[in-house]
């Protein structure tokens, strides 16, 4: 069976577009048709910018005909999480609080993608204000997982992961405050990158918790995520240039974080992760066990950081229009208003401890590896889930293995590593050194063919 072009990776499409063999209009039309066919069921998009996208695609095709190619992203249909400003388009944050908002200018990351030739097909659905991990609390309806529509696609960038999985866009841009790029990537079977904290500008992006917020790509492969990262960083590769220089697996040193991480894991997730490690070792990678001694304190530090920062941003709106928030998100905002300053300060100190411990864990290895999610995608609306006979909070589990790297700022990427027997994807998370996201990407590109079942 032939794979339609709009399901190809950017790395495959770029030379075809540059040579004039594939038109951006055809690609964009195909993505828009997928949105038209499936968005009512999956609710991946809040706003579809079909006319603008086709106009952009026609311009990109005209440029190719005139001998101008902007680079590998030229003419590629891309979606933006609806927290990120695109000029002339509403940024809803999946909330009625933002009714009537229209962005006057592009966010810097949007502007860089536009300059690189991306075609914007629309704004994707999310957990309201990115304040959740399941994408079910949205003023525009719960996003559904294409693998099983009774299940969550993860969140908060749930619509972005669904979009690239279903051919609604070739790549997408999300945000990650506790795992919101990596979680939906793992739950849907995509690649999701959270770069080092501060590398990509967050101006023009609705904040959740400013000291934890990151922007990053969701994509179909590591090379595509790498390209999007370079473009958003302001260092796009030239047309025809290569950018994804993978390490060799042989000789890679991978630190396996076991204490805390492996304490609560779904059996099938544990199995997929173990199989991935076995394949990597077979290919010549070396694995050693490492520890992050205070990892079990992560949730308490995260809560006392993220909640008050979110509450500060929402204080005026939640007082003026509490009814415009979805009930669960409103309660979480209210919770943050009760955090005491002295506890916020304790959490700041805890972050320094965690950062030093993750640095230390990375000292003798090229990267850390751990599952992205301890469970497969949960049922939509389920507050709890059974793991090894114990009832656990879905929200706590969804954040459990990702939020620590928002606290520490280390770059982290989730790549698919097979599925459960029910066909639900599992994610393999790789963590690199701070301020060296490209080294992480080189490790991830090396691991990718080994762990993708």
């Amino acid at each position: 069976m032939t794979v339609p072009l709009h399901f190809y990776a950017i790395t495959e499409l770029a030379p075809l577009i540059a040579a004039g063999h594939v038109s951006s209009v055809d690609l964009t039309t195909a993505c828009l048709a997928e949105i038209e066919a499936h968005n009512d069921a999956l609710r991946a998009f809040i706003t579809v910018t079909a006319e603008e996208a086709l106009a952009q695609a026609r311009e990109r095709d005209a440029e190719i005909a005139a001998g101008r190619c902007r680079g590998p992203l030229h003419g590629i249909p891309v979606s933006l999480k609806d927290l990120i400003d695109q000029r002339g388009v509403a940024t809803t944050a999946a909330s009625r609080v933002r009714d009537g908002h229209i962005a006057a200018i592009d966010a810097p990351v949007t502007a860089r993608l536009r300059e690189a030739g991306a075609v914007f097909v629309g704004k994707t659905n999310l957990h309201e204000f990115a304040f959740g991990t399941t994408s079910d609390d949205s003023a525009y309806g719960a996003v559904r997982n294409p693998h099983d529509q009774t299940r969550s696609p993860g969140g908060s960038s749930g619509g972005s992961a669904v979009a690239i999985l279903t051919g609604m866009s070739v790549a997408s841009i999300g945000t990650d405050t506790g795992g919101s790029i990596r979680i939906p990537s793992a739950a849907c079977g995509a690649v999701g990158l959270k770069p080092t904290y501060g590398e990509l500008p967050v101006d023009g992006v609705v904040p959740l918790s400013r000291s934890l917020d990151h922007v990053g790509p969701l994509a179909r492969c590591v090379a595509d995520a790498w390209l999007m990262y370079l473009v958003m960083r302001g260092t796009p590769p030239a047309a025809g240039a290569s950018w994804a220089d993978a390490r060799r697996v042989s000789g890679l040193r991978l630190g396996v974080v076991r204490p805390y991480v492996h304490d609560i894991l779904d059996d099938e997730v544990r199995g997929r992760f173990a199989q991935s490690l076995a394949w990597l070792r077979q290919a010549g990678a070396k694995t050693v066990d490492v520890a992050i001694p205070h990892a079990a304190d992560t949730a308490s530090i995260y809560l006392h950081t993220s909640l008050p920062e979110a509450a500060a941003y929402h204080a005026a709106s939640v007082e003026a229009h509490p009814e415009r928030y979805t009930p669960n998100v409103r309660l979480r905002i209210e919770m943050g208003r009760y955090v005491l300053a002295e506890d916020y300060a304790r959490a700041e100190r805890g972050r320094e401890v965690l950062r030093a411990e993750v640095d230390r864990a990375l000292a003798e290895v090229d990267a850390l590896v751990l599952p992205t999610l301890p469970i497969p995608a949960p049922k939509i609306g389920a507050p709890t889930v059974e793991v090894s006979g114990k009832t656990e909070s879905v929200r706590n589990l969804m954040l459990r293995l990702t939020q620590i790297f928002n606290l520490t700022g280390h770059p982290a990427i989730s790549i698919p590593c097979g599925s459960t027997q029910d066909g639900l994807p599992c994610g393999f998370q790789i963590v690199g050194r701070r301020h060296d996201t490209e080294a992480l990407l080189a490790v991830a590109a090396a691991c990718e063919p080994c762990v993708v079942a």
Partner: protein
Amino acid sequence: MSEPLHGDNMTTEDWLAWAGADAVRRGLPELKPLLEALADAQRRLRAADWNEDAAGRGADAGRPDAARPGEPGEPEARP
């Protein structure tokens, strides 16, 4: 938040009693279970061995040469 925090030592129990009462006063009784969960996190945060103390305890946690929790040399038991 019109009521002051009460209790002599600003303990987690004092904070929880005040916050829960304030939530009810504001018409948000459904916030109470969330505040109880936050209280659990607050207890853990306050008991952490990295917390500095004017008497000089805890300042070494997180340093590269600091002892790891559960290893010999750990100054205090963790929750």
